[in-house]
């Protein structure tokens, strides 16, 4: 003790400050590591999703027209004429049969020329970091290695990428099919799991008998099992979905029972099977989250309602649920975000890896964004890596906007009180 500064001061003070600073730095370091990892992830994705590309054309558009004009300046009739000259008669007839050229827009004919005559191909692509740091080297390489190529900065993620259907050509491929598939399955999962999950939570928290020891033991067993189910690997849910929804309930999940498909060719690998499987996957999570939200409603509110002569249902409906709703919604959205990124169970249930038709009903075949991303990354061509990165950004944006919706809903419910 340093006597002259009084009994409250001490040599231990500096030591205590040191320890406090040490702990503060340890915790700060944890946060920094987390942020760095997240930053690396985003940089890695953006690195592939944007960058310079060298595009070579099978036929140079300038060769198709007279010296002083450009392909883009031509009118409808001239474009049709060019198309007719440069493609085989069979293909021309086939295109005309699909839709007469007179009915096609000018831009559509121009698109057909690019698709069937010009046939642009990506000869080489560079990453975003390379594009920023080594621009002059890229220009030099492009002019020597691909003299006929045009060099341009490509954003693989653009409006066309989101609105185009799947294609075997990476340049033209889009995620519309997969995006719609994801939205359909998630919608079905929510419609299935939300009411059941919240209902189960209400039962376990408000109605289940906690008075008798035997009933209490049974509740404990149920509770433990729900917690365990929340931790079961997702592929197991996929196997369950395959056995139950795809196989056993095939007449239902294929739509055959409603006369939508022929029962002999019925196939249960549909959106509804996938949605129900994801619903099963998030059900325990929704139950647990809802239970916690309901438990957080103060007992004094229940007492107040009961004291006024309310029944249990009146109490739950008017007071417990409205006050638990922000928590229930937050938990549900978090579960749904998890389901949105699930790949394994959908592979087992039978997601299509290559479909170009939009899903139009619960009995359509489907693919989802994670499946599409996975499938693209397994392709040998480099270009698919770029569009996979673009699709990842689209998926992340979808998740972020869903979380945004959750926050808006939660604030709405909180404000009501």
């Amino acid at each position, binding site marked *: 003790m340093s006597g002259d500064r009084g009994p409250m001061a001490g040599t231990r003070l500096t030591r205590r400050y040191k320890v406090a600073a040490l702990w503060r730095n340890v915790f700060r370091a944890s946060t920094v590591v987390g942020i760095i990892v997240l930053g690396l992830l985003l940089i890695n994705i953006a690195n592939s999703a944007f960058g310079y590309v060298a595009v070579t054309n099978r036929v140079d558009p300038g060769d198709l027209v007279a010296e002083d004009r450009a392909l883009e300046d031509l009118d409808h009739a001239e474009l049709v004429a060019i198309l007719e000259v440069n493609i085989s008669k069979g293909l021309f007839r086939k295109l005309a049969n699909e839709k007469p050229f007179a009915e096609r827009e000018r831009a559509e004919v121009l698109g057909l020329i690019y698709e069937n005559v010009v046939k642009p191909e990506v000869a080489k692509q560079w990453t975003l970091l390379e594009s920023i740091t080594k621009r002059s080297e890229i220009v030099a390489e492009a002019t020597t290695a691909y003299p006929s190529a045009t060099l341009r900065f490509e954003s693989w993620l653009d409006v066309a990428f989101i609105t185009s259907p799947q294609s075997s050509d990476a340049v033209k491929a889009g995620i519309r099919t997969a995006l719609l598939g994801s939205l359909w399955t998630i919608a079905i999962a929510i419609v299935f799991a939300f009411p059941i999950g919240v209902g189960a939570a209400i039962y376990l928290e408000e109605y289940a008998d906690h*008075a008798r020891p035997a009933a209490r033991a049974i509740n404990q067993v149920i509770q433990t099992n729900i917690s365990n189910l929340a931790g079961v690997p997702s592929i197991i849910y996929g196997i369950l979905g395959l056995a139950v929804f795809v196989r056993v309930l095939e007449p239902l999940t294929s739509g055959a029972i409603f006369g939508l498909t022929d029962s002999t060719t019925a196939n249960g690998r549909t959106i509804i099977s996938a949605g129900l499987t994801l619903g099963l996957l998030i059900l325990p999570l929704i139950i647990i989250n809802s239970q916690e939200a309901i438990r957080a409603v103060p007992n*004094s509110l229940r007492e107040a309602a*009961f*004291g*006024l*002569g*309310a029944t249990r249902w009146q109490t739950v409906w*008017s*007071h417990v649920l409205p006050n638990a709703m922000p928590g229930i919604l937050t938990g549900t959205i978090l579960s749904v975000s998890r389901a949105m990124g699930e790949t394994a169970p959908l592979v087992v249930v039978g997601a299509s890896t290559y479909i170009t038709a939009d899903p139009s009903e619960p009995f359509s075949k489907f693919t989802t964004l994670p499946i599409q991303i996975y499938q693209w990354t397994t392709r040998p061509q480099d270009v698919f890596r770029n569009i996979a990165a673009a699709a990842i950004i689209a998926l992340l944006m979808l998740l972020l906007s869903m979380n945004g919706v959750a926050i808006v809903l939660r604030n709405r419910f909180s404000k009501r009180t």
Partner: protein
Amino acid sequence: MDNGRIHTTKLDSWQDTNVTYAIEAQGLNVYYDNFRALKNVDLKIERHKVTAIIGPSGCGKSTVLRAFNRMNELFRSARTEGRVLFNGLDIYHDQIDPVEVRRHIGMVFQKPNPFPKSIYENVAWGARIHGYRGNMDDLVYQALTQAALWDEVKDKLGQSGLSLSGGQQQRLCIARTIATQPEIILMDEPASALDPIATLRIEELMRELTNNYTIIVVTHNMQQAGRVSDNTAFFSLDETDRAGVLIEYGPTLRIFSNPASKMTEDYITGRFG
């Protein structure tokens, strides 16, 4: 046959003038699992009077109060033996609907607990769930007036009940209870979370309410019991099994000036508890 209904209508229409007590406990025992919280309580509560229940912590004051409107069974595994006669009818009878009991015997809690809704809605909700068909605005006005709160909130009925001060919140809870038109109002330490001025207002209100209601109040505050109550029941712990027992019951003046039991005297004079 809907037996519950028959009995609940009986609850409504029973006006036996021979029954002089508003509520009467006969041989009341309450157990939580195996623990006996209340032992052989006999208590007769007079109509249109304030009855105070006093006693040291853990002696079963709240338990006896909650036995009067069957609140014990809601949150804990409570078992009740004996009879509680409300207008001569045993509220623990098999065919009595506890929800109907709580409608006739309202309750105000220790901590003000208005619903997180508007002031108007706080008062109207109870009446609405009971299918009140009259003019709701009038009912809200009357209930808030009786609870001496109308002048303070008449311009902000749409605001949240939680925006009021603690004392106002407690009076809102009283108004909410009045709006369901009970016969008895149970109050579990209604002023313990309030400042002295708000406490006085609640006490004045309790006196006024005796014109229309029978009031039973649990309190820790000796002076409060002395100020507001007509009758006082003193509870204490049984030395042998820690169960709550009724030691002494009678007019407040007599209990405070000339207690029959040594325990009551010690407690009132502050020698224990």
